Structures are given as structure tokens and as C-alpha cells.
């Protein structure tokens, strides 16, 4: 679960990481109220989870009350990567020089957490040369102060900046460990003229699987009502932009089906994994869900029956395809009891195949003009 910038900064404050004074605003009047509290000039920042916020015009420096009113309305109405602005963060404009980068994240390949730090932070950090980034493994029980301080020395930091960096890195690492983050990132970490540091942005990704230990983080209901519906049934669901809705039992199987659809010249409308042991009711729920995708012109169901009973799947299909409105369904059913499953669908109007390839070709042909 990704946190909004303001939520991340609340965590920063909780752990003693310095952040600019700020106020969360949901409308124009709250932004104007913040003029008194924060003082002009200030920065208005769209609270969205998508990247590319700055380029989309979601961060703006405001010098007057008129500007504040105008920009508040504009940024509130902004969409960043298709995501509407949830709220505005009104933040004091910090005067600073150098922008650094520091994070604690999971390194999957090495199977450990690592601290990464660089003197050159900001929006382009990901495209900078690897050589400028220093890395430090983080033990499960936490980073030691001497290791953090050695990292500061490697970066060439001195005096007050060096000791502040060391302290912030240790606090960020403690935050990452205690709140169970996959990623805790400060970018930029700005350097003031007097050598002190301040976190100008936050990027926090929590470990979804650890949320049961952190009930204070409540998941916002998804923007997409179909995602909400999918979550209710425990389906893994990703909306895509094509016209063939892909449903199957098993994440890898559905993923490979998307590739087959693309290879056949089609485009998938969604990824939906029913999960293991899919019963009739779950199949029905999944079909009713994906038929609600406005872009779907066909539904492709790919079932490899092992523990999942293919006859259950066939009965679910039968029940739903007779409902109206309905888009054409193409099915691949293979595995245990496949002959019975195919027989169940013989008079249903659903073309059933034994291989995924055949079903994909039929579905893609079915949606071509």
C-alpha cells in the first residue's frame, strides 16, 4: 500500500525527521485559511499516488492570495496519470541548495533491505549514473550508527550535514522497520544554507501482508468500483485497456494468457485471477464483474483444473451466459473432469476448447471488426 505524501510526512514527524510546516486542504477556502498559518509564499502540492506529479503541474509555488485561490482550484481539478487529486498539501516554501536522496528498500535479489543514498536527488534520480549512489545492507534488527555514519563519509558529507544525515538515515531505517515498509524514501532531502537537512517529499510503500500488525493504516476504498468488487471476493484484478477480458485460475496462468492474447494481435481488457479451488459462485461473480468493463467485447476464461473442479466452473459459466446483457464467452477448460465440463457446456453457446491457444484465437477473432 502506497501512502500519500502527507501521510508519509506524518510518519516522518512521528520519527523525528524534519519536514516543512504544512497543512492539508480539501478545498479553496482551506487553502486560503492556510495563508495565515503558513505564510506566503507557499507551495501547493497535489496529493496523488501516481508518479510524474511535477511534470503534470501538480506542484506549484504561490506568491499571492489571488494566485493561491486560482492555483488551488486548478490543482484540485487536476488528473495525474488518470488519477484525480485527493487533496492539497499546502507547505512552506523552503529555501535550500543541494538536493540529496535517501531510502531504505527491499533488494529482492539479495534478499535483504538496503539503504541507498546519493548527493544528487530530485526528480531525475532514477536516471542518474549508478556510481553516484552509495548502498548499505540493513540487518533485520536495524542499522548501526557507525554504519550510517560511514555512509555519510562515503558521500563526502561534513560537519553538521554529516551528523544530521546520519541521524535522519537512522530514523528512516527505524521507521521502515517498525512500520514494515517495502520502501521508505526521502527525495529530495534538501540541504539548507546552515547545513541542516529537511525532507521535502515522502514516498512510503507499506508491506500489504504486514498490515494485520498495523491496523492504524486503513486502506482507502479503491477509486475503481470494479476493483472494490474484486477485493470483496478476493480476486486479483487489474484493469487493462483492451477488449478481451481474461479470467483464469492462478496468477501465472492468467499472466501467460495475456501474452497469448497479445501474440494473437488482441488486447486484454483485464487480468482476473479467481484463485485456487474456484467454486461455482466465484466463477459467476467473476463473470458478472468483468462483463461490467465497458471496453470488454468478449470474455476469455482459462481454467486448468487440478484442485479446482472443472465441472463447477462449467456450471458457473452456464448460469451466467444466459443472463442479459452478456458479452460472448470463450472458454478453455482442461484438467480433471474436463470431458464432463465440456459436455455441460455443449448446448450453452459457449465455445469450449482444450488448449489456451485455441480459445485465445477464437476470442480475438470474435472481437475483431
Amino acid at each position, binding site marked *: 500500500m502506497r501512502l500519500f505524501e502527507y501521510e508519509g510526512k506524518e510518519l516522518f514527524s512521528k520519527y523525528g525527521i524534519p519536514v516543512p510546516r504544512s497543512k492539508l486542504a480539501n478545498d479553496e477556502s482551506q487553502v486560503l485559511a492556510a495563508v495565515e498559518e503558513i505564510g506566503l509564499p507557499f507551495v501547493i502540492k497535489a496529493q496523488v499516488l501516481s508518479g510524474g506529479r511535477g511534470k503534470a503541474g501538480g506542484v506549484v509555488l504561490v506568491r499571492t492570495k489571488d494566485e493561491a485561490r486560482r492555483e488551488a482550484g486548478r490543482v484540485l481539478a487536476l488528473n495525474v496519470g488518470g488519477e484525480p487529486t485527493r487533496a492539497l498539501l499546502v507547505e512552506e516554501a523552503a529555501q535550500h541548495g543541494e538536493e540529496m536522496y535517501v531510502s531504505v528498500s527491499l533488494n529482492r535479489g539479495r*534478499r535483504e*533491505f538496503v539503504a541507498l543514498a546519493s548527493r544528487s536527488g530530485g526528480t531525475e534520480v532514477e536516471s542518474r549514473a549508478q556510481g553516484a549512489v552509495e548502498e548499505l545492507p540493513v540487518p*533485520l534488527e536495524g542499522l548501526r550508527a557507525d554504519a550510517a555514519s560511514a555512509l555519510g563519509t562515503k558521500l563526502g558529507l561534513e560537519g553538521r550535514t554529516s551528523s544530521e544525515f546520519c541521524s535522519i538515515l537512522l530514523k528512516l531505517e527505524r521507521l521502515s522497520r517498525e512500520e514494515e515498509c517495502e520502501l521508505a524514501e526521502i527525495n529530495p532531502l534538501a540541504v539548507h544554507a546552515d547545513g541542516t537537512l529537511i525532507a521535502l517529499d515522502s514516498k512510503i510503500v507499506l508491506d500489504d501482508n504486514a498490515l494485520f500488525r498495523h491496523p492504524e493504516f486503513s486502506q482507502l476504498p479503491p477509486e475503481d468500483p470494479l476493483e472494490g468488487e474484486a477485493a470483496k471476493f478476493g480476486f486479483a484484478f*487489474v484493469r487493462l485497456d483492451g477488449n478481451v477480458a481474461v479470467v*483464469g485460475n*492462478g496468477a501465472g496462468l492468467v499472466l*501467460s494468457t*495475456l501474452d497469448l492474447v497479445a501474440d494473437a494481435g488482441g488486447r486484454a481488457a483485464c487480468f482476473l485471477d479467481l484463485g485456487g479451488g474456484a467454486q461455482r459462485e466465484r466463477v459467476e461473480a467473476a463473470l458478472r464483474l468483468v462483463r461490467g468493463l465497458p471496453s470488454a467485447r468478449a470474455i476469455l476464461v482459462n481454467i*486448468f483444473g487440478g*484442485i479446482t473442479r472443472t465441472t463447477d466452473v462449467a456450471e458457473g459459466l452456464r448460469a451466467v451466459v444466459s443472463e442479459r446483457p452478456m458479452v460472448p464467452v470463450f472458454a478453455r477448460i482442461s484438467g480433471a473432469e474436463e470431458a464432463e465440463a465440456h459436455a455441460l457446456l455443449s448446448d450453452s453457446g459457449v465455445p469450449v476448447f482444450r488448449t489456451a491457444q485455441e480459445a485465445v484465437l477464437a476470442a480475438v477473432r470474435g472481437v475483431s471488426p
Partner: protein
Amino acid sequence: MTFEVPEAGDPVVVQGITGRYGSLHAGLMLRYGTNVAAGVTPGKGGQSVEGIPVFDTVKAAVEETGAKASVLFVPAPAILPAVVEAVGAGIRLLVAITEHVPIRDTLAMIRLCEESGARVIGPNTPGIIVPSRRLKLGIMPAPSFLDGGVALFSRSGTLMYEVADALSKSALGQHVALGVGGDPVNCTTMTECLDWAAAVDEVTSVVVVGEIGGDAEERLAEHILATRFSKPVVAYIAGRSAPKEKHMGHAGAIIYGSYGTAESKVAALKRAGASIARTTGEIPALVSPSR
């Protein structure tokens, strides 16, 4: 570091046996021919499931049966304590079926394995099956698997079943099929599986089913080259057409920027000399080009 797979008839414990999933699969493992000798659920000692005696602790189950292997169906919040308990009781091979395990709990399991020499497969794995020994430690559908010389290693459950089924229908049986798990971090890695396959004479070829996310396949490719692995390797990578920054079902199946793309994995495995299947259907022909 390699690991030992139980022999035919070796006793096996099922932790979390009284749950819906645990009892279903304990029965299926038993009917396949695996010696599920004991089950463990705290507070349910004295009961039985499918005729299998249930104990309160792993220690009691081990004392009674001498089991060295365990299959775990316990819920995610209880998995780390269950693994610690099992290792403490002398279990050496643990198959963690459990899904949704916190990443730091998995890292703690990895460290426990390093310290104790025990081996965890998973979490979020379908398990391991050795058809020649009628040994099934997991949830895979047994009829899809046939004895033979292929070592099948997969990040995905259903794709493992699908590929095993296709191989079996082409008379290409498997010496072993093992799911490393769909999580971002696996206690047993693909490279460790490769070392295992190198050391086992019955394995004549390796099939790898990978997917987008992380760099397990790239590391495997490096390892093939570094160890001069000499058995033929066929690889299939799912997710060529997947969008970036979206979890595609598995927690581990996610692309960030250029990290974790199918192209990167395919290119690395090609460089290492593996044959690449574009679809799962192509795999059997690549395993036996002579057919």
C-alpha cells in the same frame, strides 16, 4: 547450498491440519502415497484428520513419528512462529504453502535457515512433488505429474501444473517439480534449485517457469554460466505483455521501470544458453527436440 528431499515412505507432518485447506490436502497427499504421519494444530491434540493423529506441538509429533519434513498450512500471522517451532523440533525440510506472508517474516525464516541448516520452500508455494517416491508435499494436482528426468522449477503454481501436464502427455516425466513461490523473496531460490538439479543424477534436463518481477531469472542465468551447468535448460517467462507498476496476482510479479521485465529475463537466459519457449505449449518440444 543444496538440500535433501525425503525418501519414499519417510514420515511427514502437516502443520495446520485441522483447517479446511490443511485437511483437504493432507488427505490428497496421503492418497497419493505420501506418509502423512502426523498433523499439528495447537489445542487440537488428540483429534484425528483423515485417520492422521493430530498433536498440539511439532515436538510431540516428531517424537511420535520421527518426521523430518513438514508442510505448513497455517495462516500468515502464525507462519513465522510455526516455522521456528518446527525447526526447533528438528524438522529439516519445511514447505510453506501459506500466502500473504509479511516480507520481514520471510527474511527472518531465511536467516533461521542459514543458522540452523534447515530448508524452507516457499512461502506462497504449491510445494514439491517427487513422483518416483510418491512424495507430494504440497497442493499440486497429482494426476498431472509423471516420473521421469525433468526437474521443473516454477514461480507460479497453476503454470507449474499446466507445464507438468503438457510434459507428462508428451511422456516427459519429472524427477521433481518444485514451486519456489510467488512472493518477492523466496526462502529457496531458483539458483539453489539449479545446484540441486546439478547434483542429482536422475535429473536429465531442467525446465524453468519464470515470470515478470525481480531478478531471479537473471541471477539463475548468471549461475548457469558461473557453474557451467551442463544439463539442458528450457525456460518460459510469463508476463511479456504485462503493464508496469501493477501487481499481476502474485506479490512478486511487478515491473518497476526496466527492473523485472520479461525481455531482460529472456535475454539473460538466452545468453546462458537456455532454450526459450514463447508459450507453455512449446516447452515439451524444446525439452526433447528429437521428438
